């Protein structure tokens, strides 16, 4: 479990950029806290609509100065702006939208993920509490048509995050379809994890060395293009 290989990966912004390429125009998208939030830096001018679970569709960029309105924040408690076509609604409607299958893609961070598409993200046992901040993550997993994970490939200390079995409390089982890390792009299929793209300069073998489950190497394996 404690393989301590660690590669210098892409910066977080570049992971976000790579994810943004996977989001088709016309999509309704919810971005979780962390790397996923950075995706919105890459979608300006792209015809996608961001949903904030607080109760807003079509959130704009972060608000600054006179644009800050205490009644207009995103799910991370940051002041945001509205766009033409933005709408507001109550929390019940917001989660009806999420749970009811109206959001095309949710992008979330994760602490651990396995080859079956199970992932853990809501509770870090190191906090030492059975309870935790689950927020809307499980609703997004239950309802979004596609679930992407964007995260660092390993922890800062080089601990594996892509594991054979989760040791952290699961957020959802079998829901993740794509995994984007600083080192690789991995598709999760019924047969297991398929390595589709690696960071320039690394090999499939390098990726396997920091990945728990045995990877299936895509026939058309390529470099992550940014």
């Amino acid at each position, binding site marked *: 479990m404690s393989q301590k290989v660690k590669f210098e990966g892409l910066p977080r912004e570049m992971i976000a950029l790579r994810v943004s390429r996977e989001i088709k125009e016309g999509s309704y998208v919810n971005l979780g806290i962390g790397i996923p939030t950075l995706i919105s830096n890459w979608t300006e001018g792209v015809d996608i609509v961001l949903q904030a679970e607080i109760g807003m569709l079509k959130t704009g960029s972060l608000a600054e100065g006179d644009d800050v309105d205490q*009644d207009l924040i995103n799910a991370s408690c940051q002041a945001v702006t509205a766009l033409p076509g933005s709408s507001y609604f109550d*929390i019940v409607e917001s989660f009806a939208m999420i749970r009811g299958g109206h959001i095309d893609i949710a992008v979330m961070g994760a602490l651990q993920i396995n080859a079956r598409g*199970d992932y853990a993200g*809501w509770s870090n046992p190191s906090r030492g509490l059975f*309870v935790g901040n689950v927020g809307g993550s*499980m609703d997004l997993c239950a309802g979004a048509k596609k679930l992407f994970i964007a995260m660092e490939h390993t922890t800062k200390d080089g601990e594996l995050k892509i594991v054979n079995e989760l040791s952290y*409390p699961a957020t959802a089982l079998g829901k993740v379809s794509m995994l984007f890390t600083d080192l690789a792009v991995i598709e999760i299929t019924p047969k297991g994890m398929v390595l589709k793209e690696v960071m320039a300069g690394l090999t499939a073998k390098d990726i396997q060395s920091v990945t728990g489950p045995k990877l299936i190497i895509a026939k058309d394996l390529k470099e992550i293009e940014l």
Partner: protein
Amino acid sequence: MDKTFPSIEEAIADIKDGAVIAIPGFFACGVPRDLLKALIKKGTKNLTLACGCGPLVGAVDEMRALVKNNQVKKVIDSYGLSRSASKGMQEPFEQAVRAGKIELEVFPMGTMAEKYRAAGAGIPAFYTPTGVGSVFEESDVTNIESNRKPKETRMINGQKYVLEYALKPDYAFIHAIIGDKEGNLRYSKTARNFNHVMAMAARVTIAEVENLVEVGKLDGNDVQTPGVYVHRMIKVSRPQFAITID
């Protein structure tokens, strides 16, 4: 049907020790801060604060005062702890949770929203896909181990669902940007969040409004919470706060 009260103290005067009070707000946004301050002043004890997404993380000063006064028995929330684990360790609330002196019960946010809605809508229980595959399908998730009642699941059309129950607070504290004297309310942007559904859910709903207008000033198409859900109305000033959480 004039529902305005002469003072915020009178509007909450009948709240007794042990009451379950719904507190809306999504972190800093849409929290009924004046009502919370009046509750602190009143000193009511043994309270259960039924939240949705961290209003007490957002209104952290009010939370600290409630904990300091020893007013809180239990918090129900999807996001009740500080975002930062290290800062959370410093919070008297989290310390009380760790010590088992305050109960913290957690549900996924959408389940919280739906539990309040069910209470308001006369639906005693519903099935949800949320939480399947996690500890939330196994038992109630609370720091008090003896309160971890097993949950029930059921297969419907080949998929597994969790049975969840309505949550009916005794009171709801509501913050709205505008309201008329008969209790018709309208919210500002994302400050709506849990306000409407908690107004529906509670036995007694007390609304603080930034603008109190005469009946007829709100167009019927623009009302977001019909007055039938609102029992008491107070005028407050627009709150001042930092848009941030730890």
